[in-house]
């Protein structure tokens, strides 16, 4: 008898969750938007401080029609992707080495953690002196911000490989390359995907930070430009697009994860 109420409350919990997610959450968003519009239309703040959502939309549309928006989006996208690619190439082997070699890990880990602790803005001047203000400096900043979560995920993933499976691979006389492809890589894949989700989101942040340090194009350059010309709709629009870009990066990795880790749902 006790089972029935328990089941019923579980179902009602699920219904509530569904209502919350697909009904109340969008209403909350629309409510906030309405509040924003109401505040603007009451002329509580001057419009050049808090623009009307439609002003932002119009501003973006103008830029889009003149092909300007696309150019800046592509620049930021390219920086984020290139930086993330570098980061993967750097962090995965490094993480593997730290996980597998006690010696190298004891030697390298303090420095890796110290590098990670440097605030990137603090070395902005150095970055500009060494790399200038073209795409190289942005790739550097993106890599600098994204490599650590990836390395950390690799270390944890590789260290947690089941030691009995390692024993079995040795008993099968698998060579190191086979152990990597057939055991370590798939075993670490859930961790790698989690790390990549974090880093992918940070990649867009990194590209924006890199552009703020000094740039002549890109979405964060539009923000700097908008500040100079007191163009609040431009700033709002660029921030919005950066956010969407960041979410899109996350979404692509989440989709990749869904595909690569299909076995988890079986």
């Amino acid at each position, binding site marked *: 008898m006790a089972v029935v109420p328990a089941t019923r409350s579980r179902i009602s919990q699920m219904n509530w969750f569904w209502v919350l997610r697909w009904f109340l959450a969008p209403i909350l968003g629309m409510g906030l938007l309405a509040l924003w519009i109401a505040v603007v239309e009451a002329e509580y703040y001057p419009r050049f401080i808090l623009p009307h959502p439609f002003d932002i939309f119009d501003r973006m549309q103008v830029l889009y029609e003149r092909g300007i928006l696309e150019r800046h989006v592509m620049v930021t996208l390219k920086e984020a992707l290139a930086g993330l690619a570098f980061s993967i190439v750097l962090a995965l082997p490094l993480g593997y080495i730290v996980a597998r070699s006690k010696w190298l890990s004891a030697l390298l880990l303090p420095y890796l953690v110290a590098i990670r602790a440097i605030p990137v803005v603090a070395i902005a001047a150095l970055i500009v002196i060494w790399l200038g203000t073209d795409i190289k400096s942005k790739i550097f900043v993106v890599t600098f911000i994204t490599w650590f979560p990836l390395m950390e995920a690799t270390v944890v993933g590789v260290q947690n490989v*089941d030691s*009995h*499976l390692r*024993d*079995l691979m*040795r*008993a*099968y*006389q*698998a060579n190191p390359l*086979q152990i990597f492809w*057939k*055991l370590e890589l*798939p*075993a670490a*894949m859930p961790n790698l995907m989690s790390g990549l989700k974090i880093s992918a989101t940070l990649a867009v942040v990194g590209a924006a930070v890199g552009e703020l340090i000094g740039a002549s194009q890109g979405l964060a350059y539009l923000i700097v430009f908008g500040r100079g010309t007191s163009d609040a709709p431009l700033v709002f629009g660029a921030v919005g697009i950066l956010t969407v870009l960041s979410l899109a990066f996350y979404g692509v990795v989440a989709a990749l994860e869904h595909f690569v*880790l299909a*076995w*988890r749902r*079986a």
Partner: protein
Amino acid sequence: MTNNGSLVASNIYHAYDAAAGRIQALENVSFSLGNETFTCLVGPSGCGKSTLLRILAGLVQPESGSVSLNGSTLDSPRRKIGLVFQDATLMPWRTVIQNIMLPLEFTGLSRQEQRRRADSMLELLGLSEFANAYPSALSGGMAQRLAIGRALIYDPEVLLLDEPFGALDALTREYVSEELLRIWSQHKKTVLMVTHSIQEAILLSDRVLVMSPRPGRIVKDVTIDLPRPRSLDDMLGTDFVRLEAQVRAALRR
């Protein structure tokens, strides 16, 4: 002179360096396992049984002493030895058939031959209908049967099992141990199995080795001369009870 699958351990000593100092795990362990015999190893926990199995598998070098298989010294892992652990240790990202094929992927057999052997092993295990399922869909008993099949699929000469039924409930345990006997009767191997259950040891084996608390030594070697095939009812017979008392006394010492 030596048969296929005769495993000899001579004067094995092994110690670990731990934070608290040296831990002598094994002290002068010697025995020889005859071809196609089933031997069980019992001993208090922490006495060095797993260490001994890892040494026999060639995964760990003993501090002194040696292991030989068919008369030649074993100093690295060999495909002639199959391993089963307490947990099934399957690869969760591989399907059942991919798991059982894993050992064959290092042998140079053709893909078709690998597949053929995997199919017939799944048949023997009664797991054919799960071929394309993932291990998460298997019960504990099925997973452990799969692990046993995986150890046997490359036709090793020796099978080492470290508390293979330790994680199973009592009923499943009986069932899987009967399955092991059935499979063993079709694929005769030299078997050494670690277990905590004295009754299980006597029911399954030709011989029971008893180890002392750490540092582990072999303190008793009991021959189990009960006729085969055996059944759970044999546990009530006087011979069985006598052997059980003998093993228990050796463990108590």
